[in-house]
């Protein structure tokens, strides 16, 4: 009898333990399991390549002698800073990314406000505005390269036809015009995304807020700065961060339209890193540029999030 009791007691205790385990660990196991596929995918596509790049940046490793990679006492990093190329590329990248994002934000906001108004053909306009976003970036680059072609490009044709310029401009070969030309192509391609995001944010703002403001005697400017902008804060934070990152790593527009030239006028970090890794085949130095570039982006994202979280507080 006592044996039976003891068996029963131990069975209950086992079941309790199992229940205890179930309560505390089961959910975690479940979570880990459903996260595993995504985590494994991220490991293979992001974490491992990043770690490999960081590792490579400390070695003398080129595709021409990949079998004899050797530790080189930070020579890749010293090389990167020994010429002014990295500084020029960083300056170009920051100038391009900040200019494109600021202009894009202003134009997108204006466009979103127009599309948010009760204007005839609003639905058609909202569809049309999406067209550049559908076109792949590489196609956009080729398209604008032909538009800017100095001898038979349509840009010179229109500007000369309307008397704005007297002789053809070499848009992509001119030290002062090359960067703005690429920026125009980038803005054309990216404007729809930010416009649509801001428009969707605007449509979520309760109409009664504006009605109350009108009753209180607020003008349009006050309504914009005290209702529209605060309500859009989260959307703005997200879309500008996405735009900054997208433009910071922009490669196809520059590579196809200018190849980083003329001279160094449009050499960004993406171009410099690619040229180092795949023209010179110096994977170590290319990786060092990539690591520095990653650090800059991480610092920027951290500062950006900090800035917005301060505003939220």
């Amino acid at each position, binding site marked *: 009898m006592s044996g039976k009791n003891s068996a029963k007691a131990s069975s209950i205790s086992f079941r309790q333990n199992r229940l205890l385990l179930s309560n505390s660990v089961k959910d975690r196991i*479940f979570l880990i*399991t*459903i*996260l*595993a*596929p995504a985590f*494994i*995918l991220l490991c*293979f596509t992001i974490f491992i390549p990043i770690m490999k790049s960081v590792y490579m940046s400390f070695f003398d490793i080129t*595709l*021409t*002698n*990949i*079998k*004899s990679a050797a530790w080189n006492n930070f020579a890749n990093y010293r090389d990167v800073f020994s010429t002014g190329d990295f500084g020029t590329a960083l300056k170009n990248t920051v100038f391009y990314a900040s200019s494109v994002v600021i202009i894009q934000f202003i134009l997108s906001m204006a466009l979103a406000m127009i599309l948010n108004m009760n204007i005839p053909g609003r639905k058609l306009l909202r569809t049309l505005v999406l067209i550049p976003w559908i076109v792949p970036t590489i196609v956009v680059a080729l398209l604008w390269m032909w538009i800017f072609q*100095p*001898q*038979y490009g349509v840009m010179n044709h229109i500007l000369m036809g309307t008397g704005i310029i007297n002789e*053809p401009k*070499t848009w*992509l*070969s*001119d*030290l002062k015009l090359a960067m703005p030309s690429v920026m125009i192509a980038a803005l054309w391609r990216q404007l729809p995304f930010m416009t649509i995001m801001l428009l969707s944010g605007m449509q979520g703002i309760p109409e009664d807020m504006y009605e109350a403001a009108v009753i209180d005697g607020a003008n349009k400017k006050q309504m914009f700065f005290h209702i529209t902008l605060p309500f859009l804060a989260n959307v703005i934070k997200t879309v500008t961060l996405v735009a900054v990152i997208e433009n910071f790593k922009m490669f196809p527009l520059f590579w196809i339209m*200018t*190849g*980083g*030239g*003329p*001279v*160094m006028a449009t050499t960004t970090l993406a171009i410099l890193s690619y*040229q180092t890794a*795949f*023209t*010179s*085949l110096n994977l170590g130095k290319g990786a060092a540029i990539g690591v520095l570039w990653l650090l800059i982006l991480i610092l920027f994202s951290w500062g950006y999030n900090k800035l917005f979280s301060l505003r939220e507080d």
Partner: protein
Amino acid sequence: MKKLACLLLAGIISVSMLAGCGSEEKAAQNSSASQSTAPQTAAQTSDNTPVTVKFANWGMSEAATKPVFEQIAESYKALHPNTTIEYVGIPYGDIKQQTFVMAASGNAPDIIQTHTAWFSTYATSDIVEPLDDLLGKEYIDDIIDSYKADYTYNGKLMGIPWAPSPYVLYYNKEIFKKAGLDPEAPPKTYDEMLDMARTISKVKADDGNKIYGFGEATDKLPINGLVALRNIYSFNGSVYDKDSKVNVNTPEVIETLKFYQTISNEGLSPAGAKLKDLRNLFSIGQLGMYMDGYYGKAVFRNLSGKGEAYDKVWGVALVPVNKTGKSVSIGEAHGLVISKDSKVKTQAADILKYITSKEMITQYHKSNDVLSARKSLSADPDLNDSDFARICVEQLNSYIQPLPANNPGMEQGYLEIATALQRVTVGKEEPAKVAQDLDAKLKGLLK
């Protein structure tokens, strides 16, 4: 139940991803295992053992050359039934990166098609096999001396020139007529060429568009740095001095940069042009003169939209004489190399000999105007079958100068030369200062 389904699904996805990686790894292992056994098979080759030679090239990706490549594989197979040429078609712009990545992952093709602008990178790497023993003295001695030098590194022949081409002067006869110049009298000297270019630049095309007198490519690409050597040489300059040390801070190189600045400042040449821009402009009658390889003829026919009829519009001449007192050009080629890791080097070398043989080059010449870099074929009537071909052959055999010695930094060096051209043309910088900076850059790169 839902939880269980989720778990099952997640488990299946994770396992299949890991299995996928595993199977790839296994496949890679199998592949490397088969490679390690295949070599023995190939090395021990008896005539009955089938051998496959992988040949990475961009010719198969281009409509103009694909039939020639297919014919080479077929006719070689007819002669050697046990050897199959397997083409790995890679676009021109990607072939260097892809073949180096393939070599780094132990999957190098046996033969690789290369271009002169990046041959140095191959020649100085550890993925290419020296060819001296594989090809034999007789074959190597038959290569035009300039090309032999271009394909040598540390005293060893690292590749062979295939489809070689000198740069020759193309001029548009109709534009010459329009400008009041004799269409049958192309310039003989650089001074004459500049004078003619100035005259041509004063006339307009029928549609009112500008006509450029003489075009030089100055876009930021390694090939444009390579092409600039033609002008540097003609001004008696060089990259290396008599002691084989880098020295481009010389009066000759400065004079070359001034030449580029002059044709840019005077609007004789389109600013920042690529070679393909010059070809376009020449084909649509907006460029009077420029220098290019033998392939110009096919390009003009195609781009002008007039086909063979356009042949009457243009003429060809030797590169005009400049400071050296004779015509000077450089030789380009589609170099062929054999991978160090190839297990079928003997067969690969035999294929190189076959595709550069008189029979195959003659066929390639008939379809694509290709020339030969073999001295024994220089006077061959089949390769000198037109005035155009004779000018190209004469330039190739008598007036080309070797490129600077192969160096791991040479391709980047060409890019720096192209950047220097942009600084004097687009940036309007002082040639002497640019030459000084270029000298410092090249000294760092070409150690």
